[in-house]
């Protein structure tokens, strides 16, 4: 895997002024993401969320108009994450959950909470990171930290709700 990392043997001095700035050598290392990998993560999250939500809804089949629309929105989210399609997908997932029978605070809810947040965040990032880009790990770290904190806090709230019920 190639990408942008600190170049071995390259001075961190630059000819552009006296300020010392870090220099990275494009295409000379392996500690990078590629833009398309983010789409793969988004695709997996969308697939997981649809697999949980679609079969669970009462009276709405997977191959109904609503089901096919959700599949189309899911595929569209992966292909065009900067459009309105992720919003339609998330709204659809909420509505499917609303239509689902069974235990309200089941395990599927916990998984769906994590996946919906992942779909939103991965789509937001995939919309602004070019598909063929070589991406530093450090560029994604803050987003990962925010996601982890949000899911952890929500998980605690979920556990509290389960305990209270």
């Amino acid at each position, binding site marked *: 895997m190639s*990408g*942008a990392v600190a*170049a071995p043997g390259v001075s961190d001095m*630059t*000819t*552009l002024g006296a300020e010392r*700035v*870090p*220099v*990275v*050598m*494009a*295409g000379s290392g392996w500690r990078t993401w590629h833009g398309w990998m983010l789409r793969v993560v988004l695709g997996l999250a969308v697939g997981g969320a649809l697999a949980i939500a679609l079969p669970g809804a009462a009276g709405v089949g997977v191959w109904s108009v609503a089901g096919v629309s959700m599949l189309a929105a899911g595929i569209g989210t992966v292909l065009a994450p*900067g*459009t*309105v399609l*992720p*919003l339609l997908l*998330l*709204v659809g997932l*909420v509505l499917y*959950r*609303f239509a689902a029978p069974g235990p*309200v*605070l089941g395990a599927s*809810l916990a998984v769906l*909470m*994590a996946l*919906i*947040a992942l779909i*939103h*965040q991965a*789509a*937001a*990032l995939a*919309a*602004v*990171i*070019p598909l*063929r*880009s*070589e*991406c*530093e790990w*450090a*560029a*994604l*770290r*803050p*987003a990962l930290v*925010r*996601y982890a*904190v*949000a*899911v952890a*806090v*929500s998980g605690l*709230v*979920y556990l509290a*709700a389960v305990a209270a019920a």
Partner: protein
Amino acid sequence: MTSPAAGQRASRGGWHRTAAWYRVPGVTALAVGLGVAFGRPDLVLLAAPLLLGWAAALLAGRHLVGRPAPRAVSVVDAESFGNNAADVVTTVIGGDGVEFASVAQPGEGRGPIGRMVTLAGGPATRTIRSRFRTTGWGTTTVARPDSLGAGPDGLYLAGPVRRAPTRTELILPAVVAIPPFTLPPIIGGWAGAHVSRRPGQGSDLIDLREYAPGDRLRSIHWRAYARHERLYTTRTLSDADAELMICLDQSAYFAPRRVEGVRGMWRRAARRVRAAIVAAVAAVDARRDPAGHAARVDAERRLRATSLDHAVAAAAAVAAAHLGQGDRVGVMTATVPRRLLRPGTGNRQLQRIRHQLALLDDRRTRMLQVAWWGLTPGQIVVWCSPLVTPAAVHAAIECAARGHRVIVIDTLPFAGMLARATAADTDHLRVLAVERQLELDRLRGRGIAVISWDVGDLPGQIAEATRVMRGRR
């Protein structure tokens, strides 16, 4: 060199909100509304991580609104620029507080925007170094740092800047290694790699003569002394250098037919898919057989070459080969306006010649009569021409008639033209080929060596050229 107009086009606003910014309030409002209205706490919980992550991202990016967008500037590291390779240093300015910034970088063999690199934000300035390499020559766009800055979780966006200030450089033509021409004995010169017909200090033996006072001791032939017990000294032919004038014909320009752009969305998409498949197959091929892949890429590149590409490559190769053995080499365009680089020696002369060649363009101009070329007696003329006009053929014959040794390098990219020709053009090209072959045979019959740059096998062709020149009467 930076294009100011491109720089003005480059500006595109500051920070703005993306669709992701508005997505979370909409979904949260729906989920919480339904949950409260129908007593479904699971729907409220469903929106919780979304809302938390969104709020955290808003807090992290609240300072971005109103700030200038990050921008990128590229410079070429002049010290490492040479032999068609350049280190391009791109500086992303204004990256403090930005979550990440993507910037276009040149790639080796992939043009000025060959790759995108996404860097983490933080420091105000980040520097990226990329290697640019091209098989082309002349004024070339080396870098165009299109950029895009993004706030936390992509909620805010600055750019994309799609027409960043470009960086152009004059790329000198590459030098293909070829053997120098083996020239017949030369009249002038006192030192060099060629033999002359004049006795003097050199390496080729003429005969022996009796020793006379003043002869150098090193020229005494000791084996003759042993046999005859008298001193004899060797007489040799003086070594000579050659003076070559590379003359370029810009009165004609030929290029393989360009493939027309495809109209229609589906056709363009089909072409992209096909190109992606071809690129993937080529990547696998390059890993399995790197040498064979390189040869195939080179053959494809030759099929795209124009007559000017061939002329420039031939001129650079001949100049390097003969300057390397101490000859004097100059270059001139045999057209109006006439551009002349006087004959000289050494590596600096090779750099001057490559620089002059890099400045050539594909404009066709009127050919000068040979009398106005300014050739000096004894110069060897290397005539680089596609040889499609009677004037070009006649110029070679007239140079020979004026007493110059003439070597003709045929620069017509015939294979590429034939490969890209339509059915109607193919017949026309075959007729042209027959007519040219007759002209080339006429030149060879007059003792003028002809080398086809398009055919390849240059060492073999140069050996054949030597045979033709030696057969000249």
